């Protein structure tokens, strides 16, 4: 599957990693709901590291669409919370 890390790059990642990615994603949601910045940062870092380490960067002239788009690396806890409460990262 193709995974994009927002503001960074697109990666081709084996489907084997999907369950772990999903797990981390759900844990991040919990951390955001609990307002736990430390855990949130750590999990987000882990999720992005998984994609960067296990994935292959997609060529620049490849126009395929991503199946999954992960948030940008510098996402703050506040922004993540907004992401769930409506406005999201890209208003309008």
């Amino acid at each position, binding site marked *: 599957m193709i995974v994009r890390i*927002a503001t960074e790059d697109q990666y081709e990642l084996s489907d084997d990693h999907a369950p772990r990615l999903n797990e981390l994603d759900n844990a991040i949601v919990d951390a955001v709901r609990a307002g736990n910045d430390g855990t949130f940062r750590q999990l987000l870092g882990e999720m992005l590291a998984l994609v960067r380490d296990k994935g292959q960067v997609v060529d620049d002239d490849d126009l395929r669409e991503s199946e999954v788009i992960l948030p940008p690396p510098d996402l703050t806890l506040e922004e993540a919370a907004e*992401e769930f409460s409506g406005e*999201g990262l*890209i208003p309008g």
Partner: protein
Amino acid sequence: MPGIAGRMSTVIKAKISRLLDRAEDPSETLEYSYQKQIELLQNVKKGIADVVTSKKRLQLQSQKLEQSVVKLDTQARQALSAGNEELARTALERKQIAQTELQSLDQQVSELEQQQAQLTENENRLRSKIEAFRTKKEVIKAQYSAADAQVKISEAATGVGEEMADVGLAMQRAMDKTENLRARASAVEELEKAGTFEDLTQLGSGEDDIDRQLKELTTDSAVDNELARMKTELGSGGAGAPAIEAGGESGRPEESR
């Protein structure tokens, strides 16, 4: 994925369909989409120039602050050797503020450098995608039947549209950060205008209150010296000879420091 990745995907995809206003005629869609891509590329260039401008401004402020730190240190020494501990303390307090501000400025400059590098990378990637799209668009126009072309165009446009949406996001984040830094830079400039970090070499209107107090101190001690000398002269009763020395001394307090 229902979580944050799912939200991101949904939001970006909504953005893509807004970016790609599909026309009835497939080749029109292609040209329109290509125009939009070129426009965005121009915007990214402007964004990078903007970040560079902000960075330069912060670097300039950082240099000014460095000068202030040196100046305030000198002022503190001058005040202390003149026996005015309170004035020395004031100068040192300001030096502390200037140093703290300097540290945070330097950190902001390096943040902007990262932003600049990131945007430049985004620009290059978008340029490659646009080039790939341009090639594909010619192939589609030449080789495919109307029905197939629709599908191919849709695919290519979505792929490049995703990149466009992502670059748009990166731009927006860079601009937000730059905006915050600008506000802070203005605040530092206000401080400078208020005379907190004035340059010592500027005399006259450029003097700050520490300068003025130091000057008063110097003037006071020069007056005291002259007074003491006069007292000695009068007391000794001697005439003529010391006048040369006294003459050379007069007027000097004005230009000391």
